[in-house]
């Protein structure tokens, strides 16, 4: 059985010291080991940006794609090989700006993959521009007078898009973060996990301390029921989107793969590609 150490490699991340992404990396490694995966059972598909580098920092199959397209690549991979555990990962720019269309549709589609957004409310790699997650009035290089747009609410968006698994966590809370990733990996369907992952270099507003002060844990809410979508939506709005933990899970709806007619458990990639002559003739006869 693999331990979290087996998911480590010898690459030194190029993230800034103190970056929230380190915790996400560690949590994925722990969660993968905790649910009993071997490194070759796991594939991490990532986008572009600081966070996108994560696929290169974990010992597993890794595909560092293009900006905003981690999700379609991940879904294609999952269709090719149902046995593989697929994690898609990227930043808030990746998932909510350039890749927003894919995010909403991947959630709707509900394929059995886990999507982790490393949300730092800023564009880091390009040195500090506004993000769809930046608050109204947030001053950045690209918004010197303050952002004139409101911040997007990822959890509300996920719930509205028909998500079957919605969680939010924080880089400082390794225990909760590992737990929700584990639950996401076990969930049969699309697991959406938004992680507050502070940028220590360019975001001086949404800092570790700021998050600690503002986060509300679902565990602290009496009578909170993660199977109740209306309650989830209400609490997310009530907490200004700062609700953390496993916020919503629908265990009744099966993943996309189960609804595909004739789609076998055996990976498509392992199936025999050759037709028999009879099968071919049958297809050809349709044109006579």
């Amino acid at each position, binding site marked *: 059985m693999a331990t979290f150490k087996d998911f480590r490699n010898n690459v030194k991340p190029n993230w800034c010291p103190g970056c929230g992404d380190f915790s996400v990396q560690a949590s994925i490694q722990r969660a993968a080991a905790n649910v009993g995966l071997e*490194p070759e059972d796991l594939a991490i598909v990532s986008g572009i940006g600081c966070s996108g580098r994560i696929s290169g920092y974990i010992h597993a199959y*890794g*595909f560092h794609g293009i900006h905003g397209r981690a999700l*379609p690549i991940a879904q294609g*991979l*999952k269709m090719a090989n149902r046995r593989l555990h697929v994690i898609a990962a990227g930043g808030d720019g990746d998932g909510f700006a350039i890749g927003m269309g894919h995010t909403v549709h991947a959630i709707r589609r509900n394929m059995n993959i886990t999507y982790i957004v490393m949300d730092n409310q800023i564009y880091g790699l390009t040195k500090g521009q506004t993000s769809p997650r930046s608050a109204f009035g947030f001053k950045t290089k690209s918004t010197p007078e303050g952002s004139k747009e409101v911040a997007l609410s990822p959890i509300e968006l996920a719930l509205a898009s028909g998500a079957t698994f919605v969680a939010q966590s924080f880089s400082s809370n390794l225990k909760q973060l590992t737990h929700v990733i584990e639950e996401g990996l076990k969930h049969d369907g699309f697991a959406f996990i938004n992680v507050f992952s502070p940028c220590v270099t360019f975001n001086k507003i949404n800092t570790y301390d700021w998050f600690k002060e503002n986060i509300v844990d679902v565990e602290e809410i009496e009578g909170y029921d993660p199977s109740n979508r209306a309650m989830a939506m209400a609490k997310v709005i009530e907490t200004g989107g700062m609700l953390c933990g496993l916020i919503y899970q629908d265990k009744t709806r099966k993943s996309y793969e189960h609804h595909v007619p004739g789609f076998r458990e055996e*990976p498509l990639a392992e199936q025999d590609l050759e037709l028999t002559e009879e099968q071919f003739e049958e*297809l050809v006869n349709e*044109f006579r």
Partner: protein
Amino acid sequence: MISQLSWKIGGQQGEGLESTDRIFSTALNRLGYYLYGYRHFSSRIKGGHTNNKIRISTKPIRAISDDLDILVAFDQETIDLNAHELRPGGVIIADAKFDPVVPEGVDARLFAVPFTAIAQELGTSLMKNMVATGASAALLNIPIEEIAKVVEEEFGRKGKTVVEKNIEAVSRGAQFIRENGGDSLPDFQLEKADGEKRLFMIGNEAIGLGAIAAGCRFMPAYPITPASEIMEYLIKYLPKFGGTVIQTEDEIAAVTMAIGANYGGVRAMTASAGPGLSLMTEGIGLAGMTETPVVIVDTQRGGPSTGLPTKQEQSDLNAAIYGTHGEIPKIVIAPSTIEECFYDTVEAFNLAEKYQCPVILLTDLQLSLGKQTAENLDFSRVKIDRGRIVREPEALESGRLFKRYEFTEDGISPRVLPGTKNGIHHVTGVEHDEEGRPNESPLNRKKMMEKRLRKLKNLRIPDAIKVDAPHAEPDLLIVGMGSTGGTIDEARERLAKEGIKTNHITVRQIHPFPADLLQPYYEKAPKVAVVENNATGQLADQIKLHLGDGSKINRVLKYDGTPFLPSEIYNSCKELV
């Protein structure tokens, strides 16, 4: 007796012309006639004039004709718009209901058949199409029983009564023509066909069939004219083989999902037209950089932008060849017949995996949608070659990854599929080392770039150019691609009758351009006509670029949205010599 003629049916879009066309042509195909169809349609669901034209022949044909023998009209507009195309003495079969009038100056025989009246008598005016089918069959002396068989297949699931009523409608249409002497017009007596049961299909179906035969089991795609039939075909048949189609949110998702699936080890493709190809360019670059196989079909239509969505053009060459930033290995192939659509699709999947790069299969609207007779497809020619996939890699040294991008002599590296033990490696669109880890060192960059580009050096697909060069000293070399081949050959027949010697080359491998194969034919010809459906001569530009000489090239271009007619190519070529 005649050996070929052209038939056209016209009316309002959504009026059911398609089923008349389908039933009539299927019956003819089964009798052994060679057919070549051309659809004139607009980008809307109902309303607006539309027509389908079919050429019917006892010999192989691959072109629409200059003129028309029979026009079946459901409204006066059809007559007004199309009668000028009729040859002198042609026939108009029209619904008596609208009191059809033959336009002034048109020499045509009119049969005003009570389509609607007969259909209504039998229960519903919907059946007027069947009356028209019967009338057409009678004119050509096609046995009604042949039509009846197809009607039965078409309407069988709707019950016996419906079948019988429709067959009755066919018979009544035929009877009307016979009673009015339409079955004995000497210039409409079509020779008997050979009775061979050939295939009758569109290029898009041949591509779909080719994909399944090639082992393609996954297609993410976004609907677009004129590519959607490929998707529809695979939606229908892939589940039988465990595969599936996903309608994605856009073409970016389509191509990247196909890349993800190919990386995962399944043969996957997507298909689109120009607008989709534009969106796919970033994904194509990713496939090139990560050396991931992917097959993309571009069924060209009129561009630029939304352009002419339902019209013929061959203007995506430059986009297919150059469309992505940076420099990647990429293969572009252009089938020129229905049969080639099938075989080339199989080839495209093999090339994509063998060379681990994107392959674009370039068709055009007429090839993709023009329904035509195809020779039987040879299953024994279908060979699946998955290239350098390593199924059981050796154990790796601690801290090392599988060398997915190993420097090799031919540039092609071993590939391992995710899920394989001892195969872990990294894949990235960032420049990388042999294990796939990001690496920006100048030395590595240079070696890696050269490795990728080396893969396609000297690539020649089978029949990279198709040569019909009977003359050692021709007056003219005609070069074309895609659906224009048959039309070029008809023009050549006419030129030959006048003693003009022509050779004909169809370029099938568009990129990398097989200049060395074309060179000797180019050199032998005093003049070269490059025939293409675009406004600038993109194929001519490739020839000039790669042969280093454009002095002999004459661009024969058509970009009004309609396919070439044989006479147009004939006239252009005649002017040249």
